[in-house]
């Protein structure tokens, strides 16, 4: 069954009122004691049987983290986070690294099934058992990360045959140490910022992708993150390297159970694109946003950055952010290669008491580099959303061009939307365009839709999806449909 319908059905079956992915899975866990110090890091590193260089790398990150302070410039507020009151490692008790689905705890598989993630490769093989009316679609390879550990990666054989490496990063450390060592931290250095340093010190798993010269990855790659354990920080590390003339499309999805306390999530994603390489990175972020009174929810402090190292390389970030109590996230592109291209397409939805401060950075270093930013912000309830974007053109980036379009849509009159563009241009020949709009869903539009028979909620869904169209159309088909439904679900009860 396709991921989308399955997700939809899973949602309906669960019958959870507001957050539909809120169930907890009962599984034997191996959990590190609470607290963060060098011993915790040594323990994580030992559990993962890591080489000495990586332990040293982690410790260096930890030491620089100790000298840093939580950033305060973002327009979000939360009670102080007690970093000593968290677990930094939690893994299903089963020995890490199952090789096939048969070895995975069936309870885990059931969880993913509930989420609508098709791990069963067989069912996904195109054209075989598709229900009537469904057209065959290319399969998606999935790396499922459960709490701190990658539990299973599908389609590895097909990918290997194509020369593509797609595996948990902990495995890559073991099997491809040179590649990992060469690129890890090369885009986001260990001391880059508070959360990135924390992640570098304690990251437990995540995905590693390597697409060699000239290879077009034969299928979409996807990682599904699920936080399950209580009081556990989740710190994934994703590294994607695409060599000359190669390309890949990567999807990331996330959920977490409902909890009263807030949970911390601080991921780092690094992308490297060489000459003529292209990386498309899509995210549908649906962490638990907290209840309608603002209790609980995920704090999502993420560092995502891509380096367009080669000439004519291209990195495209597309994100649909509907979840989390707090989102702090600025997927960025470093446009180094001549004629390289950076794109950022974003939809951020906040409802109830959610806060989002998100945007992008486009750093133009090479000549004739181009970037496009399309950011759509939707605020409802008492939520607050900020778009924060930096476009920097270095002196040598002649012929650089940027186009930025920021649109905000307000639903109701208790919410806020802010646009904070920073433009630093050090090259007179560069062209930078910025457009911004703020609008409300008008009574006229709602009434028009309802006169045609749509319920108020469907009308809002339709109008919001229309507002986001320029971004949604950048998503791979599967995700686009899922994202549309998510948008509607996350705005439920926001009008009337």
């Amino acid at each position, binding site marked *: 069954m396709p991921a989308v319908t399955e997700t939809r059905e899973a949602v309906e079956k669960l019958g959870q009122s507001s957050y539909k992915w809120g169930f907890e899975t009962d599984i034997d866990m191996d959990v590190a004691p609470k607290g963060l110090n060098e011993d915790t890091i040594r323990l994580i590193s030992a559990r993962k049987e890591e080489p000495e260089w990586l332990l040293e790398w982690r410790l260096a990150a930890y030491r620089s983290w100790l000298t840093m302070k939580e950033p305060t410039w973002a327009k979000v507020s939360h009670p102080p986070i007690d970093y000593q009151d968290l677990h930094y490692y939690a893994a299903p008790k089963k020995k890490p690294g199952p090789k096939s689905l048969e070895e995975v705890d069936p309870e885990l598989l059931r969880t993913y099934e509930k989420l609508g993630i098709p791990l069963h490769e067989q069912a996904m093989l195109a054209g075989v058992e598709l229900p009537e*009316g469904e057209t065959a679609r290319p399969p998606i390879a999935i790396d499922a990360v459960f709490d701190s550990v990658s539990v299973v990666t599908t389609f590895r054989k097909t990918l290997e045959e194509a020369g593509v490496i797609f595996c948990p990063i902990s495995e890559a450390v073991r099997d491809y140490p040179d590649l990992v060592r060469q690129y890890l931290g090369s885009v986001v250095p260990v001391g880059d910022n508070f959360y990135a340093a924390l992640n570098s010190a304690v990251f437990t798993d995540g995905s590693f992708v390597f697409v060699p010269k000239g290879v077009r990855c034969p299928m979409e790659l996807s990682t599904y993150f699920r936080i399950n354990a209580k009081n556990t920080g989740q710190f994934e590390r994703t590294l994607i390297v695409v060599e000359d003339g190669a390309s890949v499309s990567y999807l990331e999805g996330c959920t977490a159970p409902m909890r009263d306390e807030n949970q911390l999530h601080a991921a780092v994603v690094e992308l490297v694109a060489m000459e003529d390489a292209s990386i498309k990175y899509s995210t549908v972020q649906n962490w638990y946003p907290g209840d309608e009174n603002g209790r609980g929810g995920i704090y999502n402090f993420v560092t995502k950055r891509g380096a367009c190292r080669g000439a004519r390389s291209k990195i495209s970030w597309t994100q649909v952010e509907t979840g989390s109590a707090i989102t702090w996230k600025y997927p960025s592109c470093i446009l180094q290669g001549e004629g390289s291209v950076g794109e950022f397409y974003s939809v951020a939805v906040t409802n109830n008491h959610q806060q989002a401060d998100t945007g992008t950075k486009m750093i133009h270093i090479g000549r004739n580099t181009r970037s496009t930013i399309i950011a759509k912000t939707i605020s409802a309830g008492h939520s607050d959303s900020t778009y924060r974007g930096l476009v920097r053109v270095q002196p040598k980036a002649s012929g650089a061009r940027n186009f930025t379009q920021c649109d905000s849509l307000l639903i109701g009159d208790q919410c806020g939307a802010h646009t904070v563009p920073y433009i630093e241009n050090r090259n007179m020949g560069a062209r930078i365009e910025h457009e911004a709009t703020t609008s409300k869903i*008008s*009574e*006229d*539009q709602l*009434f*028009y*839709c*309802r*006169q*045609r*028979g*749509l*319920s*108020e909620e*469907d009308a809002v869904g*339709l*109008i919001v*999806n*229309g*507002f*986001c*169209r*320029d971004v949604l159309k950048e998503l791979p088909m599967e995700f686009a449909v899922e994202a549309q439904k998510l948008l509607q679900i996350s705005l439920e009860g926001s009008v009337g």
Partner: protein
Amino acid sequence: MTQFLDISGLCARIDADGQEKEILKGVDLSIPPGEVHAIMGPNGSGKSTLSYVLAGREDYEVTAGSVTFQGQDLLGMEPEERAAAGLFLAFQSPIELPGVNNANFLRTAVNAVRRARGQDELDAVAFLKTARAAAKDLSMAPDMLKRNVNVGFSGGEKKRNEVLQMTLLEPSFAILDETDSGLDVDALRIVAEGVNRLRSPSFSALVITHHQRLLDYLVPDRIHVMAQGRIIHSGGPELAQQIDREGYTRFLAEAAAA
């Protein structure tokens, strides 16, 4: 009482910048099943307001009167319930929905009312076939279905799009609010034919217009004159010519004297 649409003593007001403004001041009007009625009247007399109140727009407050539609209390229903019950309003100024694909909008609407009416939903293929045929009947360019709802449509294109929606939603009662305004002669005929195609014993319409020409194509059963929030005169189709010749002065004077 006609058992189809009965409006009686309908009063409605709007809150205009903190000031209560009475717009409908006791509208009485009955439309039997299968009949087409027209409303004519000076600008600002309340014609569009009446259509909005019938369709359930919430900013108008009904202060007195009643409306029965096929035996149901229309005023107690939500706008989408009225649509499902068969009421359709072609807007005087159709609304733009940026980013919303016209075909997708139409299909969502059609399936919403079909669901509410206990009919099977149409799948994408079946729907597109029907929609394309209906668009062709209205001489609409094929790309109109692919464009965003009313965005960048010319005045005439918007009106045709309203008639397309009406055709696909299969209403039992349609209100057309100046659907003829802004149409060229050919379009006027095409739109009138679109309405005429729907005519049957189970379809009634209320056509709001300023021009006799539409009524030449769409010969109505009755014509009502509305002024200052009331129906002040009713007559047969010949009334249109009289209004065209003489304007509203005489009706207004008569109403003032009464």
